[in-house]
């Protein structure tokens, strides 16, 4: 797939390194959600491009390939036409099978797309619910706070007594 005339480049070794690089999972736990979504988009586009290519090639041929030279046949338009129709007839079942496969792949792709969108919307809903829960907790904490609890002066270091409720960092506060 790649080539180079640079005598200091080992192309086979480079191909192996490309495989190794691609084998790294972009959806790994430390991965970025936005990038994972972008990667999924690229995957979907690549599949789409391949399907379009397959579709273009899965119709019976109606013109003689320019680089195919067969003695006697290439010089006669009638013979060429006859060969093309015979081929078309012979491979009719194959064309139908190919078309069915392409259609099913397209359905699959649409399904994947729907599922991705569904995941997005579920994620959004979950996030909204978390935000609501977080707001409710904050509201209930304020309601239950003792009216005579002394307030801490702005510049005084906060001292947490053993009896005081634990301080929960806001980033984990809303975990269900």
């Amino acid at each position: 797939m790649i080539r180079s005339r640079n005598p200091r480049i080992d192309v086979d070794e480079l191909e192996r390194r490309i495989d190794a690089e691609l084998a790294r999972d972009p959806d790994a736990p430390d991965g970025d959600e936005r990038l994972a979504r972008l990667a999924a988009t690229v995957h979907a586009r690549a599949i789409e491009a391949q399907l379009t290519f397959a579709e273009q090639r899965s119709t019976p041929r109606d013109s003689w390939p320019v680089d195919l030279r067969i003695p006697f046949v290439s010089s006669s338009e009638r013979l060429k036409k006859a060969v093309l129709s015979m081929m078309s007839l012979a491979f009719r079942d194959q064309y139908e099978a190919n078309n069915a496969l392409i259609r099913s792949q397209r359905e699959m792709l649409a399904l994947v797309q729907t599922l991705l969108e569904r995941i997005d919307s579920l994620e959004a809903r979950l996030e909204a619910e978390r935000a609501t829960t977080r707001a409710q907790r904050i509201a209930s904490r304020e309601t239950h706070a003792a009216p005579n609890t002394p307030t801490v002066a702005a510049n005084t270091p906060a001292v947490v007594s053993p009896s005081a409720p634990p301080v929960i960092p806001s980033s984990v506060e809303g975990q269900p």
Partner: protein
Amino acid sequence: MRLAIVTPWYGRELIGGAERLAWEIAHALARTGAEVEVLSTCCRSFLDDWATNYHRSGVSRDAGGVVLHRFPVDSRDRVAFNRANTVLTTLPRIGLRGDRNVLDAVQTRAFINENINSRALLAHLRTAGATYDAVIFVPYLYGPALSGAALVADRAFLIPCLHDEAYAYLEPVRALFATVRGVLFNSVGEEETATAIYGPGVLAKSRVIGHAVEPVPPPATPMSIGSFAPHRSRYVLYLGRQDSSKNIDFLIEAFRAFRERRVATSLQLVLAGPRSATRTADGILDLGAVSEPAKAALLTYARALAQPSIHESFSRALYESWFARRPVLVHGECRATARAVEDAGGGWIGTTLEDWVRMFAAVDESADDAVDALGERGWAAALDNGAWDVVARRTLDAISTRLAPPAGPRIENIVPLGDAAVGRYAQSLTDALNAAGADAAVSIAGSAATPPGARIIAHVTASSPPTPADLLVAHDAAPAVIPSGAVQAPFEGRATIFAPNHGVAATLEESGIIARVLPQAVSPARWAGLRPPHERWLDGKDNLLSIAPLGADEARRLLDTFVAYLALVREARLLIFTADCDGEAHATLLHEREELDLHNEVVLVADAMTERYAAYRAATVALAVGRPLSVESAVTPLWFDLPIVALGDVTVMETVEPCGVVADTFDARRIAALTRIVASDRVLRAAIIGEGRRVRARYAPGVIATAVLEALAEPRRMTESVDMR
């Protein structure tokens, strides 16, 4: 030729690299018959007070025929200078990058004004500067060069002795490189350092003149230095000033690590050279400064020489070692030494501590024959390097070519009407010929009468009308429209035929026509004097620069590749030249950038030269996944030392494939992974950039012009009209 050499300290007894060079080249130039005057100060040496006049001012002439003018130095504010100097010497290396300014204006002024300066010397340049044919400044970072070059800019030449250090990034130093008429480098590596700092524009006026080193004759009989007997020891030699600026601490650290891992080894590290404190450790022997015979003995019997310094424009010790047929170990971050070793194959190159430990192991464990073979290769390179007289001849040649190139013939490039690509090719050829001294012009076929006596270069395509010519460039060679018989007969043996690339040449050959390949000239000169208008893209992220023309489909393809790249590296930027996009591509890019939420990552670069320059300077890798590349688009990144990853096409086959990596088919993820590897693997990058320099040299205007002028000088002229149809 009347020459002046301006240097802050001058004398036969001085031992600094630049000082020795100034003395040697002055005398070598005088030996060629040139009138040489040295303009220097009365200060004794670099190590003395720069405001103290030690020598008497005035004029003297030495036995070598060199006239020496000494001028008194000015008083100076040492504290202000030292303050600025301390800021510079303590700057972290990571801050030294391309076009970044390293010092504020106040401290820069202090560095320049309180440097070693001589108002009297500058006054002499002002009044008598025009009486010299050329004024050569050695080296770059002291007052006489920084303030004097502008006074004689039209005839100023700089032998900078440059290495990658903070001083080189100062604004007045950049101005100095931009001002002088020509730059003369000691080594290819030094030229590469200058290109990295000042951009490829410097290449248009630079020449590598080299630097000579005399071989140190081996001792007649083995000798001992104190209790150390070199001829009975196995050791790696360090030769030179033992100070931290020479990276000697790194060398010692690496050798210690090596000894810890190989406790049974008998390999020693011997340090020879002036030092402030003795360095001793297991297996390390510090001899301090040694005599010339001792140095010769140490070089002769060493297993190898270590040169760990990363601040060299040329290493004398390295060549002395090669003259003694000993291989060398050098640091990969020093372009001058690494490039010399790479080209000669006379040793090992290592960058990290681990690399150096491995290199010591290789020196220790390799068979004697293998080590000697490397030394032999170095010896051959040292012989090639030449003596001072050769360097002087190269210097004179570089100066006279730059000042007044030999007047060439009047040349008319005849181009067909309406073919933009051929027009661009002819214009670049015309520019190259004019820069080489010819009087060349472009005219449309049939538009005007050819000036009398002009040599004709006809640029023809399949549809060109018959054109009489001295030289023919066949841009289009479809055999179907150029019948072989019609072309071969009139051309054979009469006019030289050129083809713009190997593809056209091969097609012509099928028709029985032998054409030489004359690629389009791509000059680095257009980037001279430019500064990026901002530092927005110098934030450490990988910058992928798209260099291919884009339609809508190609724009999508490019974004897919970039997104796949982002999935691998998380943070990166894609720079796209707006001028490369047609209307649809532009709309697609804006739409997709919105869709994919890539506002910060995808940047459309405006068409201003400074913006383009900034993009090339900031780029990590050039990426071509669009429409076929023009020669200029493919070669320009090579002038910026950018590795290219490209999809294959005709231009790519000739420009990128010999140095970079070409993908046969488009696969966004694989191309992204390949780009990632090229961006991050230093060894692979160095391999691509190294070969890229060879490729770009083929497109240098000087090379192209020489080929054409030589062809025109050949005693062949086609007089008949030739019908290309």
